[in-house]
């Protein structure tokens, strides 16, 4: 049953399995285990990013294409819901319309980008997505009547999902069951379904062809697969999943702006997470995201202490200043490209093989 749910792609490492179970249980029980607004926000962000990063892994890890337009699709999803709810009012049909339009737009855009660039050379694709993503960012700030420009959009959701709604009068296990909690579980369930769906895709015959293309495009073509078609399909699929991740983000935050979903910083974050977590291993998305976002939210505090403690040493304290955490992450990223090409997950899996 479990093997079927995981599409026969089990973690294949005891430590990894334990780690995954801890993360999943932690996320499932987050509202009851950790108190406070920040903890729940961090948990929700982890959920959204698991979908986003896994969808990027589909493209980078399984097909071997580097895209820089992933946040564009993420943003389309988030703006889709945000704009629909602002323009049509807070009801379920506007959310549905927002999702439908966003997915359709992402499909068309990713198809166009793929057709334009994937038939030429992989490098064209990387450079072109970078250019397209920047133009899209400009476009979103230009269409400020719709997107709210730099201020972004605050919108309300249907009653059931709004913080003022209460399902039960009495708190359950000391926690009030309000709209926010329901939204969290909506995001949680959606993440589980989407993740399992992606796991299913990469372990299907289609996914195997993608991996063949990654390993040796020429040979894959020689066997008779039209690599352009498969690459484009992978591009479109990954765009759709990223769009859905954007939808989840907008539902959780009830806000969307360029900085929260479109910015290039998020693109860099995704790239770092995929590589550090492990390219071509869907589980890398779970481990990588959890570690990264926990670090992003709590490591800065730790580094602030480090900087204070080393205040007397000039260079060291500026290296440890909390603003420089991205520096260390960049170094970690480079090291893991060299020494851990399959990331944390790959390392854990080979550890097991070595011990036997």
């Amino acid at each position, binding site marked *: 049953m479990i093997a079927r749910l995981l599409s026969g792609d089990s973690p294949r490492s005891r430590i990894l399995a334990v780690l995954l179970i801890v993360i999943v249980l932690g996320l499932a029980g987050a509202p009851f285990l950790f108190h406070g607004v920040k903890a729940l926000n961090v948990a929700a962000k982890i959920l959204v990013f698991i979908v986003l990063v896994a969808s990027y892994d589909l493209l980078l890890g399984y097909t*071997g294409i580097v895209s820089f337009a992933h946040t564009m699709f993420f943003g389309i999803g988030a703006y889709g819901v945000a704009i629909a709810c602002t323009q049509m009012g807070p009801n379920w049909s506007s959310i549905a319309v927002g999702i439908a339009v966003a997915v359709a737009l992402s499909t068309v855009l990713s198809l166009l980008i793929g057709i334009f660039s994937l038939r*030429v050379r992989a490098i064209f694709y990387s450079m072109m997505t970078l250019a397209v993503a920047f133009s899209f960012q400009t476009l979103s700030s230009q269409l400020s009547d719709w997107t709210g420009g730099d201020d972004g959009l605050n919108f309300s959701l249907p009653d059931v999902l709004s913080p003022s709604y209460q399902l039960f009068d009495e708190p359950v296990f000391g926690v009030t069951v309000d709209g926010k909690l329901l939204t969290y579980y909506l995001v949680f369930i959606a993440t589980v379904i989407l993740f399992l769906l992606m796991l299913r895709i990469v372990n299907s015959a289609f996914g195997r062809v993608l991996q063949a293309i990654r390993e040796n495009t020429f040979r894959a073509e020689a066997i008779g697969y039209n690599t352009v078609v498969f690459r484009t399909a992978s591009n479109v699929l990954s765009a759709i999943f990223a769009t859905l991740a954007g939808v989840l983000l907008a539902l959780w935050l009830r806000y969307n702006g360029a900085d929260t979903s479109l910015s290039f910083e998020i693109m860099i974050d995704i790239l770092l997470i995929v590589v550090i977590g492990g390219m071509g291993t869907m589980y890398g998305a779970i481990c990588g995201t959890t570690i990264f976002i926990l670090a992003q939210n709590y490591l800065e505090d730790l580094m602030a202490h480090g900087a204070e403690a080393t205040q007397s040493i000039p260079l060291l304290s500026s290296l440890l200043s909390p603003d420089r955490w991205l520096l260390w992450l960049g170094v970690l990223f480079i090291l893991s490209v060299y020494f851990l090409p399959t990331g944390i997950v790959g390392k854990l899996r080979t550890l097991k093989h070595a011990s036997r």
Partner: protein
Amino acid sequence: MSTTATVSDTPQAAIAPRRIDWLPLSLAPLLMLIAYPLVGSASSWLTLTVAGLAMGMIIFIIASGLTLIFGLMDVFNFAHGIFIALGAFVAMTVLGALPDWTQADSLGLNLLALALAALAAMLAAAIAGLIFERLLIRRVYGQHLKQILITMGGMVVGQELIKMVWGAQQMALPLPAALGGSLIWGEVAIEKYRLLALVIGVMVFFCVIGVLNRTKIGLLIRAGVQDREMVESLGYRIKRLFIGVFAAGSALAGLGGVMWGLYQQNVTPQMGAQVNVLIFIVIIIGGLGSTGGSFLGAILIGLLANYTGFLYPKIALFSNILLMAAILLWRPQGLFSTGNR
């Protein structure tokens, strides 16, 4: 379809005397001609055209280094922007240290200060490039996916290091006194700095073309592009050539950073990432690794940006991407394809 055409073309092109592909070259004059009736007045047209050409030159200076690195080394350096930012910051420091020279009302002293700043920027960028090549790129020659990832990581680290040294905020980079303002002939106004950019851009173009086509090193570089192993087997140390080209490309990026920073009149640590986008568009339009192509692509981008900025300001923000799409529809490999890659 396009791939089969290039495959059958290559052997002929190698044997037949080199034909100049005139069609793309006619694009820039064509664009100027089309713009003339739309703009209406001759004086604004001339102002816009000179401004566009100058902007194109600055973009070309930035992009030329990356074109070299692409062309010879087949390295996808996504961190090129970091050398541009470094150049701009070094120039800012040097110009800031010479207030007597930059504020003096003498063109000679101003230019001297600028030359010093440019030299320092190029040197700093070249050294940074050498370190970058030795530390990061050396291990990933021939592995494109890893190159993109590694250089992207290098970009993140480099940007953080710049923030550490110069701070994270935007800083002003004023033009030297005699270079500010415009020359005015009748109704035509031309910024002095753009004239300087025009001159430097043309100089860089002819230097790069001259070195590549007229010197022995250039011959070796071009031979290395064609067939790396053959050059090695003839006893030349192609690795050293590679490092030299990488340093030269980075130095050009440093020079471009100075020009771009003075053009924008400010510098930010993020400028590298912003400029990267522009460079990539130029290189895609021009054809990977083609110096002439990127020269032409930069001019087209500069002209189009200025014309549309005057005529349809809303579209101007997307003129680059529209131009890129149009060119790729016409020639999927860019204006001048370098063939073997």
